[in-house]
């Protein structure tokens, strides 16, 4: 372990005092932040030379961001337990036998969730709930089932204090699936996030339409292109956290992101960007991720000692890592300016969009050539990820999105641009569309758009009504009313509300073009 300076210790101590005294953090949020502060004093990773200069500047300059993963990862960033195995066999460590009815199944799951770590300390994946619960759904009368499910979801919303947790349903319609949609529509809650794995060849229209109806009330579920994800990650994939496609029974060790706009800023011109700056930053980020993974696998002891691994709920060799990026739009615009083509903007001009594709091809090729010994499940490579942004991001659009305020006038033009970019990101990319309330009367309108989009290689779409309280920030959900509470200085239950408030300010998410 390397030494650190006295000033860094003092700074951290001040930070700790601020956390302790904070009027807006809840107790749980304080504990989590205190742990991060302690972790920030560690120096154990074997990081590549040159990282510091790319990682530590402010948001206007930094080229790599490690998304608060800390200095000494104590667990993988995202963990995707095999809940089916748990419900089938129970758990020795948790002293639970397999459940025999719906009440036990739900209770078992709620217990299990408290033991699934993640970067936020809350489970980022809570299971393929329709398949998990379908075998138990007829063990009680239907009205009781609905009531139990309602309590289950309320319990999650009030105890998983972070809307990066994600449940999945589909692609096939089930009784449990319908009930889940019904309950979610009534509850209008932020947690958990919900995705319908959708395949027009497998999913009945009626079920998909019920999902649209639910989404226009509670901003969920989102729609995942099941065929596309299955091809890349096999049918054993899940959608976790914001919209991250990950292998079942495994997860992601880490997620770091390139801030492409800042890489463009430090480039002399397009040539310098492509030949020097982008390859240089990609290489350092990949080796930084290698270092994190090495520590997690070889030193942290997580995979030897945690009951999830010991009992086979997760498998070390089903983990991969996410090579993220943000700010493609700004990156393209900056490079076009440097080439003297300032008016040609990403999302609108063919040449600008083509440049976006070239940049993505280059990053894709880089990743294909980088090898990590512990990402066997994905061929020894990382998975590209269009990261959704964080509250502090200023003038950096999430992933490959067209900046808010610059969306093409017609939705069809918007979708056609996106259709060139979604395919690069097996571990997630997504776009969000607020929909005018008139379509409440025509959910088939939304479903037609989803069908067309998936036929055009889009991967993941979210909709919400322009008038609903629950809204999608960048990938996660927040209640407008909770943002208002927080901005007036009151403490709120979920930590994602603060992120949403930052995003509303810096990311202009309340100004999205309404479709």
């Amino acid at each position: 372990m390397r030494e650190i300076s006295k000033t860094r210790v003092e700074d951290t101590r001040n930070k700790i005092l601020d956390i302790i005294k904070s009027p807006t953090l809840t107790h749980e949020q304080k504990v989590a932040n205190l742990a991060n502060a302690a972790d920030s004093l560690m120096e154990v990773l074997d990081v590549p030379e040159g990282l510091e200069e790319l990682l530590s500047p402010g948001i206007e300059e930094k080229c790599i961001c490690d998304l608060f993963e800390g200095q000494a990862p104590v667990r993988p960033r995202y963990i995707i337990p095999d809940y089916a195995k748990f419900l089938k066999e129970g758990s020795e460590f948790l002293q639970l036998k397999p459940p025999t009815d719906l009440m036990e199944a739900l209770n078992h799951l709620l217990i299990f969730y408290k033991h699934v770590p993640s970067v936020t300390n809350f489970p980022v994946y809570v299971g393929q709930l329709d398949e998990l619960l379908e075998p138990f759904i007829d063990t009680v009368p239907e009205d009781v089932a609905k009531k139990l499910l309602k309590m289950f979801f309320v319990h999650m919303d009030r105890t998983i204090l972070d809307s990066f947790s994600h449940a999945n349903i589909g692609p096939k319609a089930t009784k449990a699936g319908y009930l889940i949609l019904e309950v979610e529509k009534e509850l209008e809650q932020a947690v958990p996030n919900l995705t319908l794995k959708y395949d027009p060849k497998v999913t009945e229209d009626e079920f998909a339409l019920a999902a649209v109806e639910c989404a226009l009330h509670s901003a969920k579920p989102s729609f995942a292109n099941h065929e596309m994800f299955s091809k890349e990650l096999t049918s054993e994939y899940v959608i976790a956290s914001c919209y991250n496609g990950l292998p079942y029974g495994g997860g992601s060790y880490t997620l770091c992101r390139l801030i492409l706009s800042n890489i463009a800023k430090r480039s002399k011109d397009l040539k310098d960007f492509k030949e020097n700056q982008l390859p240089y930053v990609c290489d350092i980020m990949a080796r930084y991720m290698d270092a994190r993974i090495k520590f997690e696998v070889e030193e942290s002891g997580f995979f030897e000692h945690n009951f999830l691994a010991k009992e086979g709920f997760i498998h070390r060799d089903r983990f991969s890592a996410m090579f993220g990026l943000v700010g493609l739009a700004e990156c393209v615009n900056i490079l076009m300016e440097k080439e003297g083509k300032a008016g040609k903007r990403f999302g609108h001009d063919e040449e600008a969009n083509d440049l976006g594709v070239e940049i993505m091809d280059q990053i894709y090729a880089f990743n294909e050539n980088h090898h990590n010994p512990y990402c066997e499940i994905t061929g020894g490579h990382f998975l590209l990820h269009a990261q959704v942004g964080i509250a502090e991001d200023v003038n950096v659009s999430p992933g490959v999105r067209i900046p808010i305020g610059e969306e093409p006038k017609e939705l069809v033009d918007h979708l056609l641009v996106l259709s060139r970019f979604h395919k690069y990101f097996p571990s997630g990319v997504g776009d969000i569309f607020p929909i005018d309330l008139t379509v409440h009367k025509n959910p088939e309108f939304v479903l037609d758009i989803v069908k067309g989009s998936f036929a055009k290689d889009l991967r993941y779409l979210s909709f919400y009504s322009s008038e609903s309280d629950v809204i999608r920030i960048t990938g996660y959900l927040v209640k407008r009313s909770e943002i208002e509470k927080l901005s007036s200085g009151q403490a709120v239950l979920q930590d994602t509300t603060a992120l949403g408030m930052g995003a509303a300010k810096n990311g202009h998410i309340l100004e999205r073009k309404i479709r």
Partner: protein
Amino acid sequence: MKAVVNHILPFSSVDGPGNRTVIFFQGCNLDCKYCHNPETRNLCGHCGDCVKSCPTGALLKRENKVVYQKDKCVDCDTCIKVCKQGASPKTKEMTAKEIFAAVKKQIPFIRGITVSGGECSLYPQVVEELFVLAKEAGLSTLMDSNGMISFKEYPGLLQYTDGVMLDIKCFKEKDHIKITGHPNTMVLENAAYLAQLNKLEEVRMVIVPDLYEGKESVKKTGEFLRKFPGFEKIRIKLIAFRPMGVRKEYAHYKTPEQESLEEMRSLLQKMGFETIILI
């Protein structure tokens, strides 16, 4: 053969089932007081009044014709407000092929197209040609029409039309004349003809309490349609008058009470209509 097109809306959720591209033709053979798009009623007479009013210089007068330059237009709609003819300088003459080229971009996001207006039936040949192309591409085809031409005389057009969404502005002849300037004999004849062919997709009624007795008209219309087998499936849309877009002299009409619309809905429900939409 060309038709004058006001504009093409790539995605619409309110012009038939699912997501559709809508083609709004220019010109109309009625003159409804409450028209929500009065600028679509007539063809431009090239008087030039609007040219000076354009803030961006998108309009020019060349060889006695008004020329519209789309790339300079910021869609402020000043020209439309200025025009005293009920027209727009922003229209475009297009062949069916040209219109279809603009539709194609939306495939596969749409399930069909709807022709509207103005009044689409003023261009029966172009619409028929367009529908043939749409059918070849697997799209469904709907007409949104005021029913003032005799559909009987266009069997070719109907062959490629999946359904007609028909306005019945008012059932009582006298009131129909008051609202539109024309009698409704042809409209009702068409309603009957289309209903028999199973091509009456939707019937629309705009409710304007200041103009005519809505409940009475809705009741009579319902009774009229009920004679045809399969009438239950005809979608009924009751549209509350709103002043948005309406000419100044008629914008003072009142919006109907939600309660009275609900009454009309239950009336129709009792008659057996399955889908009644209030807008």
